[in-house]
């Protein structure tokens, strides 16, 4: 049950944020993260943002595979 949803922060409201994932929007808790700004991407799990996302998965995989060379 690690299932996480990448989503974009639209609005921040004191410990909560409205996030958007491919056009679906929901308010979730941001109590586990600090310094979030609208436009940031977060990983959401069970209604809570657990991490900020640094890049898209293709760029990341490219860099990670690059370390093998």
């Amino acid at each position: 049950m690690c299932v996480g949803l990448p989503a974009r922060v639209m609005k921040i409201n004191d410990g909560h944020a409205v996030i958007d994932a491919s056009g679906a929007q929901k308010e979730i808790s941001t109590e586990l993260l600090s310094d979030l700004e609208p436009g940031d991407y977060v990983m959401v799990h069970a209604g809570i943002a657990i991490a900020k996302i640094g890049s898209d998965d293709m760029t990341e995989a490219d860099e990670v595979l690059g370390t093998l060379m």
Partner: protein
Amino acid sequence: MNDRITLAHGAGGTQTAELIDRVFKAHFSNPQFTADDAAVLETEAGKLAFSTDGFIVSPAFFPGGNIGKLSICGTVNDLSCMGARPLYLSCAFVIEEGFEMAKLEEIAAAMEKTAAQAGVRIVAGDTKVAGKGQVDGLFITTTGIGRIREGVSTSGAYAKPGDKVIVSGDIGRHGCTILLARNEFGIEADVTSDCAPLWANVEAMMDTTNDIHVIRDATRGGVGTVLYEIAEQSKVGIRLNTGSIPVQDGVRGVCGMLGLEPLYLACEGRLVIFAPADKADAIVAALRACPNSENAAVIGEVTDEMPGHVILRTEIGAETMLSRPTGELLPRIC
């Protein structure tokens, strides 16, 4: 007249007559609309299609329509899937005591509008009123007849290896809309029901060819359920190209949030068509030129391998099976 339905409206006396006149006759009037025990109809010789459907959707009003519109579309589309021009409908209403008159009028108006769009006439009806709590709001049953076009014969058992599988538009919108309207998960998205009458679309397809093997309207259980039904009935395998299946962003987002598969969300205005490969492009072009099927697409093909199974080509190029539908995802979806 009162602003709410009462038991007296269902008793068969003056108030029933008043209700029929002011609400139903006002919206359904046409030459065959009967004041007698039954409508009398004459039709040309030929094969007829005959279908019935009950509607208990909750909530009764949702983005893109209401239970009235749905009740016309459901039966019109069932007839259309047999290649039949829908001709006449009857509707039976079971209304809960206390139901708002204004809402009933709105529903009847939607039925009138949708029937006109579909070219179908409502010729008979019935109204019953049940005590408060004995029915939830309003239930509608529609029954319809249509005349099957000469030379057309469709059935779930007629899919053949080599056929292409076509879907008439993006999937899962009705189920997604109802789910959002029930607001149990605090999710918002810009999704409306795909509920629409599709005779014009079927007619446009049949103008390109009579050689269409299967036409099914995907309702409860979505497109995925239809695919499994056809695979079983026709004893064939179906290969799906996941990348070709049209899904609107909002639907994708909601499914991602809730772990749902869009192929199993209900539709109410989508056809799944199986036709020979050389006819597929013309069918898709004809559909795309019609309202309510602008996003039609070929999504797969029929194979003689793995009969009864629906196979997906995944995003890493491997093949797996589409997981089978496992029962009611959302109750009272239509």
